[in-house]
C-alpha cells in the first residue's frame, strides 16, 4: 500500500480566513502555513492549539500575515516547537511583516499577544531552503523529502512538494501562473500526476481583465487624481504585493517623467527595500537579466521615497502625492491614519489593490455601493505627563517593592523549609540564624564550596561556607611534568570576528530607528482612543493586483497537474463548491473539501512493488520513444535475486509468451489528424458532432472523452466507419501511424 496521507484543515476552509492546515504523511505531521488575520483573533487558532504540540515540521509558503502571522504566537503560547522551513525571502520579508504588524499594533493599543522577542525567536528557528532544493528530513521523518518550488504571487512564494516513496503531495495555494514585473510564474510542469494536490478555491469564481488594460486603468486613475490636485492612498501589505506596485509606479513615472512624489510608508520600509535589493536570485527572469547584463538593480528606486514614520510624510512638500502605506486592511498602521485624514476630501483617491480581509475596514469600503460614512477608532500612544506620570511612577515603585517583598518572602520561606528539619539533626552547622548574609551571596558563591560538605550531611541552603574557602589545585602530572592543554596556547582566531562582535547575531539589527524608539522606549506612555465618524467623500476604487491566478487558469492548471486526489481549501463556500463540482466532472474522481478539524484520508489506494530488471530481460526489450517516455511491452517471469530477497524479472524461458491484447499508445488530437490527413492528400472536413469526414465515405469519430481533457481522461475511444473501399484501408493506415502498437 502507498504512503498514508491525511489532511486536516485548522483554519481557512469554506471562507477567506487565514490558512493553516495539518498534513500527516505516515504519521509525520506537517503544519503547512500558520496564518492569522489582521484582527489577531485568538479564537481562530483554537484548532491549532489542540494539535500544536504534535507537529513535527512547519512549512511556510508566503511572507504575509495570512500565511505566517500566527507563528510567533503559536511558538510562544501554543507550544509549537517544530523546525520550520521556508525560503530566504519568506523568512526575511515575513520577519519584517511581523515587525510592521507589531509596531502598527503597539502604536495604537496595548498589544500583548506576542512581543518582538517572540517574533525574533520564532523566525530564528527557520531553516532556509532554495527553490527546488530537495531537503531530506531525518529522524522521525526519515524518507520524506521536501522541496519548495516557485509559486509567484509574493517574493519567495512557495509551492511545497512533499515526497515519500515516490509519491508526491503538493501544497499549492495563492499561486500565480503569470509572469510579473518582479516574479516568475508557477511552473505546472514540475508537478505532474501527484498523489495528492492541496489547493485553494479562493479565486475560483473570479475573472481578471487583461493585465495591460488593468495596468492602464490603474495608472490613469492615479494620474487623474493627482492632476486634479488630490492625493492617492494605496493601502498595501508590508513586503509583498507592494513591491510589484512600486515597480509599476517607478516604471510609469520614469516613462512619463512625472514630478509627483511617491512614498512607501511602513515601519520597515527602508530595510525592506534594502533586503529586496539583495534577493535578485529569487525574482523573475527579466529582473535578473537586466542586472546581469547592465547591473541595473530594479529595486534601486529612483522615484519612490521610503519613509518609516508619518512625521516625514507630514513634513513632505505640500501637493498631490501617492502614498503606499501598510496595512492593506486599514485596520491599523499608517494606512489607517492616512485614510482618516484624507477620506473627507473629494479630490482624494483610495485605491485598493487587493480584496480586504473579511470584516475589516477595507472590506467595508470595497462594498458596492461604498458606505457614506464609517466609524473608526483613532488611537494614539502618548507619553504620560503630569499627574498620570506621577501615578505611573508610584505604581511602578509599588510594584517593584511588592516584587522585592515577594522575593524576599519566598527566600525566607525556602530557607525555613530547608532549614527546619535539618536544624536539630545537624550539629556541625554553625548557627545559621545568626548569620545575616544576604541570601544571594550564599547563592552565587556558596554553591561551590558546599559540595565539599554535601557528602554525608546536608547543610541548610542559607548557611555560608563553614570553612575557609580553599581551592584545590588539582593539576595533572605525567612523565614530562604538568599536563599542558595545547588549546590554551593557540592564538585565538578572533581577529576576524572582532568586528562582528558588535554585530552579533542580532536579527533586528536593521530595524529602523523609529521602530527602535518604540521598542526601546521605556518612557511611560499610554494609549488614547477616540471614536469618530469619517465621512467618506474621496473616491474608492478596487482593482485586482493580488497576483493570483484567476478561476479559469486555476482550473486549467489543476487539469494539467492532474492529481490522483485533490483537496480544496481556502475560499468562500460558494467558490469551493463550484471548484469541487468542476474538478469532479473534469479532473478526477477524488475531490475533497474538508471542514475545519475534519480529517480526510487521501492515502492513495495505489499498489506497488519493486522489482529488479535483469540484464537478460533488458537486452531483449525494444523501447519505442514517445516524447520523453520510452515504452515497451514485456513478458517476464518473476524470480529471486541471488543474494538478497528482491524480486527480479527474468525473460520467459522456452515457451513463447502468451499473446496479449495489443495496445495502441498515443494521444490523438482530431485537429492534428485532420492536418496530417490533409497533408497526405485526403479530403478532410469536420462534420457535425466532432466527426471527421475523410474522403467521400469514411468517418472518424472520437467518442466518450471529448469533454475530458488532460490526465483525467480514460482510454480514448475512436471509431472509424465506412464502406468497403480502398480509401477505408488507406485512412486506417494513416490512423494507425498516429499510434505506437505494443
Amino acid at each position, binding site marked *: 500500500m502507498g504512503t498514508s496521507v491525511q489532511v486536516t484543515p485548522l483554519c481557512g476552509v469554506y471562507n477567506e480566513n487565514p490558512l493553516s492546515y495539518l498534513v500527516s504523511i505516515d504519521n509525520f505531521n506537517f503544519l503547512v502555513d500558520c496564518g492569522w488575520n489582521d484582527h489577531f483573533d485568538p479564537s481562530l487558532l483554537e484548532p491549532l492549539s489542540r494539535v500544536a504540540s504534535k507537529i513535527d515540521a512547519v512549512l511556510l509558503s508566503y511572507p504575509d500575515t495570512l500565511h505566517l502571522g500566527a507563528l510567533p504566537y503559536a511558538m510562544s503560547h501554543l507550544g509549537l516547537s517544530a523546525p520550520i522551513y521556508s525560503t530566504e525571502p519568506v523568512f526575511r520579508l515575513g520577519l519584517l511583516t511581523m515587525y510592521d504588524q507589531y509596531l502598527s499594533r503597539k502604536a495604537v493599543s496595548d498589544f500583548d499577544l506576542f512581543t518582538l522577542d517572540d517574533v525574533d525567536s520564532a523566525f530564528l528557528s527557520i531553516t532556509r531552503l532554495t527553490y527546488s532544493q530537495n531537503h531530506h528530513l531525518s529522524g522521525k521523518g526519515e524518507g520524506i523529502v521536501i522541496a519548495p518550488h516557485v509559486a509567484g504571487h509574493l517574493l519567495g512564494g512557495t509551492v511545497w512538494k512533499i515526497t515519500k516513496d515516490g509519491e508526491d503531495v503538493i501544497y499549492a495555494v495563492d499561486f500565480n501562473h503569470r509572469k510579473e514585473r518582479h516574479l516568475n510564474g508557477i511552473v505546472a510542469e514540475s508537478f505532474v500526476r501527484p498523489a495528492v494536490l492541496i489547493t485553494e478555491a479562493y479565486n475560483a469564481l473570479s475573472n481578471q481583465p487583461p493585465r495591460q488594460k488593468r495596468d492602464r486603468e490603474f495608472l490613469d486613475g492615479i494620474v487623474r487624481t493627482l492632476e486634479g490636485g488630490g492625493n492617492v492612498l494605496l493601502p498595501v501589505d508590508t513586503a509583498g504585493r507592494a513591491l510589484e506596485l512600486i515597480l509599476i509606479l517607478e516604471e510609469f513615472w520614469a516613462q512619463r517623467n512625472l514630478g509627483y512624489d511617491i512614498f512607501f510608508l511602513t515601519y520597515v520600509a527602508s530595510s525592506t527595500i534594502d533586503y529586496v535589493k539583495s534577493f535578485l536570485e529569487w525574482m523573475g527572469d527579466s529582473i535578473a537579466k537586466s542586472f546581469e547584463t547592465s547591473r541595473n538593480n530594479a529595486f534601486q528606486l529612483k522615484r519612490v521615497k521610503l519613509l518609516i514614520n508619518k512625521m516625514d510624510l507630514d513634513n513632505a512638500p505640500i501637493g498631490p502625492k501617492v502614498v503606499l502605506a501598510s496595512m492593506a486592511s486599514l485596520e491599523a498602521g499608517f494606512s489607517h491614519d492616512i485614510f482618516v485624514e484624507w477620506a473627507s476630501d473629494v479630490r482624494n483617491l483610495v485605491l485598493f489593490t487587493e480584496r480586504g480581509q473579511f470584516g475589516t475596514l477595507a472590506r467595508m469600503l470595497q462594498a458596492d455601493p461604498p458606505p457614506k460614512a464609517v466609524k473608526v477608532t483613532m488611537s494614539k500612544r502618548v507619553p504620560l505627563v503630569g499627574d498620570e506620570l506621577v501615578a505611573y511612577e508610584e505604581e511602578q515603585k509599588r510594584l517593584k517593592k511588592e516584587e522585592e517583598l515577594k522575593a524576599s518572602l519566598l527566600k525566607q520561606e525556602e530557607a525555613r523549609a530547608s532549614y527546619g528539619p535539618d536544624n536539630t539533626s545537624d550539629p556541625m552547622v554553625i548557627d545559621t540564624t545568626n548569620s545575616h548574609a544576604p541570601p544571594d551571596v550564599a547563592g552565587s558563591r556558596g554553591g561551590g564550596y558546599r559540595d565539599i560538605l554535601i557528602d554525608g550531611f546536608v547543610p541548610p541552603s542559607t548557611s555560608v561556607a563553614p570553612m575557609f574557602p580553599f581551592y584545590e589545585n588539582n593539576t595533572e602530572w605525567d612523565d614530562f611534568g604538568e599536563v599542558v592543554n595545547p588549546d590554551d596556547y593557540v592564538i585565538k582566531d578572533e581577529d576576524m570576528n572582532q568586528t562582528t562582535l558588535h554585530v552579533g547575531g542580532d536579527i533586528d539589527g536593521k530595524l529602523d530607528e523609529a521602530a527602535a524608539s518604540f521598542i526601546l522606549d521605556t518612557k511611560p506612555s499610554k494609549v488614547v482612543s477616540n471614536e469618530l465618524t469619517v465621512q467618506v467623500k474621496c473616491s474608492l476604487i478596487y482593482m485586482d493586483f493580488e497576483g493570483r491566478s484567476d478561476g479559469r487558469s486555476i482550473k486549467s492548471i489543476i487539469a494539467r497537474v492532474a492529481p490522483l486526489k485533490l483537496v480544496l481549501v481556502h475560499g468562500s463556500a460558494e467558490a469551493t463548491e463550484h471548484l469541487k463540482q468542476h474538478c469532479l466532472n473534469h479532473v478526477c474522481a477524488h475531490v475533497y473539501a474538508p471542514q475545519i478539524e475534519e480529517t480526510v484520508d487521501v492515502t492513495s489506494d495505489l499498489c506497488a512493488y519493486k522489482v529488479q530488471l535483469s540484464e537478460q530481460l533488458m537486452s531483449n526489450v525494444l523501447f519505442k520513444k514517445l516524447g520523453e517516455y520510452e515504452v515497451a511491452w514485456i513478458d517476464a517471469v518473476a524470480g529471486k535475486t541471488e543474494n538478497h530477497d528482491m524480486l527480479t524479472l527474468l525473460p520467459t524461458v522456452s515457451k513463447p509468451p502468451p499473446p496479449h491484447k495489443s495496445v495502441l499508445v498515443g494521444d490523438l488530437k482530431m485537429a492534428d489528424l485532420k492536418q496530417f490527413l490533409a497533408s497526405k492528400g485526403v479530403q478532410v472536413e469536420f462534420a457535425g458532432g466532432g466527426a471527421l469526414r475523410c474522403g467521400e465515405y469514411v468517418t472518424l469519430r472520437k467518442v466518450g472523452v471529448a469533454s475530458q481533457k488532460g490526465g483525467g481522461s480514460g482510454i480514448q475511444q475512436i471509431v472509424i466507419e465506412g464502406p*468497403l473501399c480502398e480509401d477505408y484501408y488507406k485512412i486506417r493506415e494513416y490512423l494507425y501511424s498516429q499510434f505506437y502498437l505494443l
Partner: protein
Amino acid sequence: MASTAQPASSLKRRDAPVTREGDQLTIIPLGAGSEVGRSCCYMTFKGKTVLFDCGIHPAYSGMSALPYFDEIDPSTIDVLLITHFHLDHAASLPYFLEKTTFRGKVYMTHPTKAIYKLLLTDYVKVSKVSVEDMLFDEQDINNSMDRIEVIDYHQTKEVNGIKFWCYTAGHVLGAAMFMVDIAGVRVLYTGDYSREEDRHLQAAEMPEFSPDICIIESTYGVQLHQPRHVREKRFTDVIHTTVSQGGRVLIPAFALGRAQELLLILDEYWSTHKELQNIPIYYASPLARKCMSVYQTYILAMNERIRNQFAHSNPFQFKFIQNLNSIDDFTDSGPCVVMASPGGLQSGLSRQLFDMWCSDKKNSCVIPGYVVEGTLAKTIINEPKEVTLMNGLMAPLNMSVHYISFSAHADYAQTSTFLKELRPPNIVLVHGEANEMGRLKQKLITEFAADGNTKVLTPKNCQSVEMMFNSEKMAKTIGKLAEKTPEVGETVSGILVKKGFTYQIMAPEDLHVFSQLSTANITQRITIPFSGAFGVIKHRLEQIYESVESGTDEESAVPTLLVHKLVTVKQDSEKHISMHWAADPVSDMVSDSVVALVLNISRELPKVVIESEASKTEEENEKRAEKVIYALLVSLFGDVKRDENGKLVISVDGNVAKLDKQSGDVESEHEGLKEKVRTAFRRIQTAVNPIPLPGS
C-alpha cells in the same frame, strides 16, 4: 549478469559491449589534466554527457589557449556546468557556445553569470592579439548570455535525465561544486574550492551524499597553508611597516575574487589604525569597480558574517579605499598602497607601477595568490638581482617581495580531511602541476588506497579514464498489475515505461493514470454489399474458423456472427452486411479474411476447394517449417549444422549451442549465446506456427 560468470573471455568481449556499453563511465580532461589552466572535463555515462568548466590557459593565446575541444563531439554534450567566473574556468565559453556545434544547456550561479560578462568583456578589450587570434568578440559574449541558465546553491535541476545540483565552494563569490547524478551514479566536481571560511565567503560545504567519483583540484598538492590569521597578520604588518617608512606597496592581484577579500582586510585594518588613515589605498581596476555592485547585491551567496553586517550597512561600501581608473590619474607622491591587476605582472597597470617602483628598496610588492608558471610574478618570488622592464631594459630588483598566499584553494590538510569525510571510491585529480599532482597522488594513495578500495587517478589532457558501474535497473510495478505481488515463477506482463532513468511497469489500462501517455481503442466498422443468405456466410466461416458464434443484435434484432471471438459480422439489411471489431493486428487479419470470403460468395463463383491445399499433410507442413527455421538460423548465426539426433548445432566463435527443434531447449556452455539462440528460435517459431486463439 549471468554472462559475466563465464570464463570464456573472447566471447564475453564480443557480446558484452551490447549490454555493457551503457555501464561504462568515461572521464576525459580536455584541459587542466596535470596542468593548471583551461579547466575542462568531459564525462559521459549511459549516453548522457556532461562537460565541467570551459576555461582558457592564461599563458597561451589564441586557439592554443583552448582546451582540446576537437577530442569530443560538442553536439553530444547535454549539459555544461561552469563552477566559477575565473578565466581558466569560464573564458572559452563564448567560443564554445558560438563557434562549435554545442547545443546543450549551460548552467552557472547568479553571481558567476553577472561577473562572467564583465570579466570577459574586459578580457576581450585588454588582450591585445591579432584579429585572427581572437577567439570571440563582445557580440559573442552578449549572445552567450542568453543561453546561460542560472542555478542557485542546492537547487536541483534535471536535463535529459541528468540530475545535478551544486554546493558552495568557497574560493570566490559564486563558486560552486557540482554534483551530477546519472542513473544513480554520482560524480562530484569540486572546481576550485576552499574549506576555510574567510571574511566574506563560506567554506566549501560537505555534500550530504558520498559520490562514486570525486573530480578534485590539486593546485596546492601536498603543501600546507599558514593559518589565515597568520597570513593576514603578515600581510598587514608588511604593509604597515612599508608605508610607515615612507615606502609604497604594490599588490598585483587579479581584479576579482581574492582582491575583494584583501580590500575587506585593508579597509578593516585602516579603520582600526587611525595613524594610517591619511595614507591612501588605491584600487586600480575599473572592472572591479563595475563588479562592486555584484558584490553588493549577492549577499545571500556569502557567509553569515557578511549577512549580519549587511543588517547595518553594506560591508562592500568601503570607507578607506579609492578607485583609480588609470595611471594618468595617479600622482606618485609619498607612501601609498595600490592594488592593481593583472596578478601575474604580465602587462597593464600593475606592471607599469612595478617598473616604476622596483628599484627603490623602501618599496614592497606583496604577491597575494597563486601565480602561474611563466609570469613575471612567478620570477620575482625567487628574488632575482635584476629584472627586465617592459621597455626591455634591465633594472635592479631592490624592492622587497613578499609572497603571502590568500588564494582560496584547498591545501593538503583540507583536501585530505575533505576526502576522508566524503570517502569516494574513485578520486580523479585535475587542476595541478604534474609534479605537485604526483606527490599528492602518492600521499593520497598511502592514506586512502591502502585498503585497495579507493582508486586515485591523474589523467593527462585527453587521456580517458574508464570506470564500470554495474547499476541495477530497478522498476516499480504499480497499479492494477501490482495488486498481487507475484510468486517466483509467475509471469508478469505489462507495459514497461521508462522516463529518464526510472522504470515503471503497469497494465495498459493504467498507462494514462501514471504517465502522461494515453492509450486508444479503435473500433472499426465496415459495410460490405452482400445480397446472399446470411447462413451461407456462416457456413463458409465455420469451414475456416474454429469459433463462429451466432447471435442476434440487441438493438435491431438482426442475426450476428462472432468470428474467432474478435470480429462481429452483422446483417444490416438485405443488401448489406456490416462488420465491426476493435483494431488489433490479429483482428484486422481476421476481418480481411472475412471480407475476402464475403466477396468471394457475392461473386457467385462456384466454390473452388483446392483439395491439394487442404489435403496437405501435417508432415509436409512441418517439413516446410523446418526448412524455414533452418534457413533463418543460418542467416542469423552462419554456421548451423544438423547432428545425428536431429538437433541443430550452432557454432559461433568456438562456442557451440545445440538446439532441440521440438522442445526449443538449447544447450550451451555459453550463457550469452544460449540466450540469443533461444530468443531467436522463439521468435522464428511464433512467425512460422499458426496464430493461437486469443486468451488460449
